[in-house]
């Protein structure tokens, strides 16, 4: 059986990639994808811990399903916002959308 540490390491790598993507990318769709990556890293953690610590029950799996559901809703909403943004500003670069200040 693959040891827990491997799962955790993979999850950490995925999460860090996500953080990097959110901070470094300028395209709104890529930022959104990076956020999805972070969510999946968290889901992986849930499932790994659940399988190792309490294999009789499916608590971790339920959480993962919840996260997937919420992520799907979030993506739906975020994509809609990005489409509106593109229609209005003809850009999906988050650096150019900086009027919400002062």
């Amino acid at each position, binding site marked *: 059986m693959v040891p827990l540490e491997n799962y955790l390491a993979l999850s950490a790598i995925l999460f860090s990639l996500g953080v990097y993507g959110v901070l470094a990318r*300028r395209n709104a769709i890529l930022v959104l994808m990076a956020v999805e990556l972070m969510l999946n890293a968290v889901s992986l953690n849930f499932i790994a811990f659940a399988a190792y610590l309490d294999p009789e029950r499916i608590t971790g799996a339920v959480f993962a399903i919840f996260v997937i559901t919420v992520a799907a809703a979030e993506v739906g909403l975020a994509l809609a916002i990005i489409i509106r943004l593109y229609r209005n500003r003809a850009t999906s670069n988050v650096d150019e959308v*900086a009027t919400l200040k002062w």
Partner: protein
Amino acid sequence: MGAEQAWLLAAIPAGMFLVLVLFGRYLPRQGDYLGILAIGASFVLFFPVLVDFLDFFDAEEARLAIHESIAWSEVGDFHLRMGIYIDPITIVMFGVVTSVSLMVNIFSVGYMKGEPRYWWFFAVLQLFAASMLLLVMADNLLLLYISWELVGVCSFLLIGFYWEKRSATEAAKKAFITTRIGDVGLLIGIILLWRETGTFEIQEIIHQAEEGLIGGNMLFLSMLFVFLGCMGKSAQVPFHVWLPDAMEGPTPVSALIHAATMVVAGVYLTARLLPLFEHAGGMLMIITIVGLVTALLSGFIAFAQTDIKKVLAYSTVGQLGFMFVALGSGSVAVAMFHLMTHAFFKALLFLGSGSVIHATHHNQEMDKLGGLWRKMPITGTTFFIGCLALAGLPPLAGFWSKDEILLVTRDAWTVWAFVLLAFAAICTAFYTTRLFIRTFLGPVRDQQVHDHTHESGFIMTGPLIFLAVLACLGGFVIFHEVGEALGFPGGITEFVFLPPHEPHEYEIDWALAGASLVIALIGVWFGAFMYWNGSLARSTRLAEWNPGLYALITNKFYFDDMYQAVIDKGLLGFSYVVAWFDRYVVNDTGVDGSAQVTGYGGYLLKFLQTGRVPNYAMGIAVGVVGLAIAGLAVTL
């Protein structure tokens, strides 16, 4: 009705005050007869109280006072009671206040006829009499202080009755503020006494002081503060400045303030608390000195006044000084005796001057009057009687009481106090003579004023005649036989006394009576010598003999100027500093300053909001990492 119901004396006018304030202006004649009715009821009810008290009173069996009280309020262990305390002092005050108030009310019907706010005048007269009656029967200092302030408010309202006139409002404010300075002292004194004894009841405090339960220094200090209140109310130097200005009020009010209500309150309180003053070492000396200085200064100032009412005002200040000298000499009876006789002849003189002012269409300058006796025989004659009483000529009331004051002063203090007081008495006789000659005798100075003058109606001369009779006969109550004939235990010195002093029968001291007569005659002769021939040549020469002294007297010893300077330089200077501090430190630095610091801080911080999402995301990431590191550091 017994003496226990004496509170009705104050309650009836107080109730009538409410009626007149609420409905006075809608009543026929604006309700003046209701005012006379109420104060008249008090005057009538005084007699059953007097009879009942005389039945009860027995000096040998130590039945000296009637005391009734009810619970007022209770807070925890603190029980406050209020009630009435009737002893001979109160009885004398009852008689004076009710009779003089009644006469003033009747006189006002004629004098105030056609004035605006006629109903309001009568309403406040009721409250004035009611508060004074409450003051003299209060058994505790708190109730006394309440009525004390009510008296002050009423005098403020009445002095400022003609509030359309700026000088009247100024005089009202001056009276109120000057007495207020003393009243603060009284309040401090009352609080100090309460702290020492735990009670407001006057007799209980006196009892504790006699047992020696109050520390000597503390007693002296609290009595000093109490005496400040008495000085303010009774217009003693240096608080005397308000009384002459109070002449701005209608003349009947002056009569009331000077004779029965306002100014005698201080004398009454000092008399009431005299046992405490006796135990507060040195206070009697202070009282005597204040009285002497006041009597002398006011005597001098009155020399150079040309307004009838101002002369009378300064004579009141002086006579109050005489009363304080009597109190300082330890004699309550003599002070109350002089208070009574003075009330009668001073009310007479003020109402008489009111009659003159009314008849001459508000002319009160002696320079424009003169030769009025022929035109106004009744006013002139009664005024003459009042003047003789004030000057202290026998057998009028003022002679006996002034003679007694000289006697107790001679016995209590050195001969110098006696000489100074005698000199003040000479001054009194002098300016009284001057006042009478220049108003009623001599040539007519202003023909136009003279032609329009007429004798006042009976509603005004009636009270004058009544008071003139009292001013003639009031002095005889000093004699044992007269007192006994009236139902008293004896003369006034056998009736009015405070234990542990013993009552004593008056015996005429022929040498002193002769001296008093000579003193009065010197003053009268000098006044007649200066003014009899109707020309001012002699008095002008006297004024030019020492211009510096004359200027000092005409400027009233610069008291007003001094106070004005203190207010202008001291008070306004201090206020300027306070205003500066308020404007620049409190307002600009404190209030506006904190707002500006916050505003500028916000201006600087708002640039953190870039509006770029990655910046915020970076903030979140750095925050989370920071928290994680901090958490690790704490755990490890």
